[in-house]
């Protein structure tokens, strides 16, 4: 009986098969990281509870977008690219005192670089950005405005962080993500408290 020797299997085509699979996964893979502008919605107050807060008009920056995607800031016609500058000027103005906390009287803003215009916002912690949009405004425009407002706050925080900690706010956030120490936490919280994002969105124009 002829007994054949077990011949070795040719593994030369293994690479081809692996390549085929590799190309398949290369094509089908999607490494999309979901990124976007994050917002925290305000909590709903019970309907029986009246808490109308009275705010001075000079502490509110009115941004209105109409259905033709045209912008009105403080009753002046502007472009999207102007919003960042206008918001920064408004928030960083520091024309007055911060809100008094209990017995502690309000203090002037010692980190603001604004014009100290008495007709603009008193203090960054009092400055409110109001974004009024129309139901017919396109989402892209809405996001652009949101983006510019976010950019204004980020730049103000960056400036303060560079002055105080010699490191920008974004870098601090990155550091915190890598290793969250308590001292970093307090730094970030300080910056956030110095320039809190107070954005209100009134009912849209019908």
């Amino acid at each position, binding site marked *: 009986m002829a007994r054949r020797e077990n011949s070795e299997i040719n*593994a030369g085509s*293994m*690479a081809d098969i*692996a*390549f085929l*699979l*590799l190309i398949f*996964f*290369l094509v*089908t*893979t*999607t*490494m999309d*990281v*979901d*990124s*976007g*502008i*994050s*917002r*925290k*919605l*305000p*909590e*709903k107050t019970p309907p029986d509870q009246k808490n109308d807060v009275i705010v001075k008009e000079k502490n509110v920056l009115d941004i209105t*977008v109409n259905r033709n*995607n045209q912008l009105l800031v403080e009753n002046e016609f502007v472009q*999207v*690219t102007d919003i960042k500058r206008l918001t920064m000027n408004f928030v960083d103005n520091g024309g007055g005192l911060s809100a008094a906390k209990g017995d502690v009287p309000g203090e002037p803003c010692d980190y603001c670089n604004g014009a100290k215009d008495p007709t603009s916002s008193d203090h960054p912690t009092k400055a409110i950005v109001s974004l009024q*949009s*129309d*139901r*017919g*405004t*396109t*989402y*892209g*425009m*809405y*996001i*652009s405005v*949101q*983006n*510019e407002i*976010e*950019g204004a706050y*980020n730049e103000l925080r960056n400036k303060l962080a560079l002055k105080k900690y010699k490191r920008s706010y974004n870098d601090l956030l990155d550091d915190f993500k890598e290793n969250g120490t308590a001292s970093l936490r307090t730094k970030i919280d300080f910056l956030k408290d110095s320039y809190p994002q107070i954005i209100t*969105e009134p009912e*849209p124009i019908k």
Partner: protein
Amino acid sequence: MSKFKKKKKGLPAISTASLPDIVFMLLFFFMVSTTMRETDLLLKKPVLPTASEVKKLELKSLVSTIYIGKSKDPRISGDKIQVNDKIIDIKDITSFIFVERSVRSEDEVKLMTTSIKADKDASVGTILDIKEQLRDINALKISFSTTKGTDLKSNY
């Protein structure tokens, strides 16, 4: 002189024996990192707006996504909302979030984020309605999904 001329002529062939190993390594990398698309879009694929101040969404398992866009059928106008392979009404968003919450543990619920993937031509009215629905049930963390870029002109 002949002593030095004994070297072989020509280059030896490069061994390709380790090629399969390299390819397999790459293959495993892509197999592990790949994510198959979980939802089939029933809408026209939303063209996300561009924004420069974006933050990455952490904790992907805690993100529930709402798609907003136009219907594939050009005769149907208006914004359509899709969650989990279904086109739904604005009123049903609350029940969608409740279902999403029910499969997570209690302490994860407050970390849950709603990602809104809307077309840049969608109307703000729809978005604000959704935000109102989310506020009703205390799902307060939202993220407007955007692509990163500095060219905001393409948004409007």
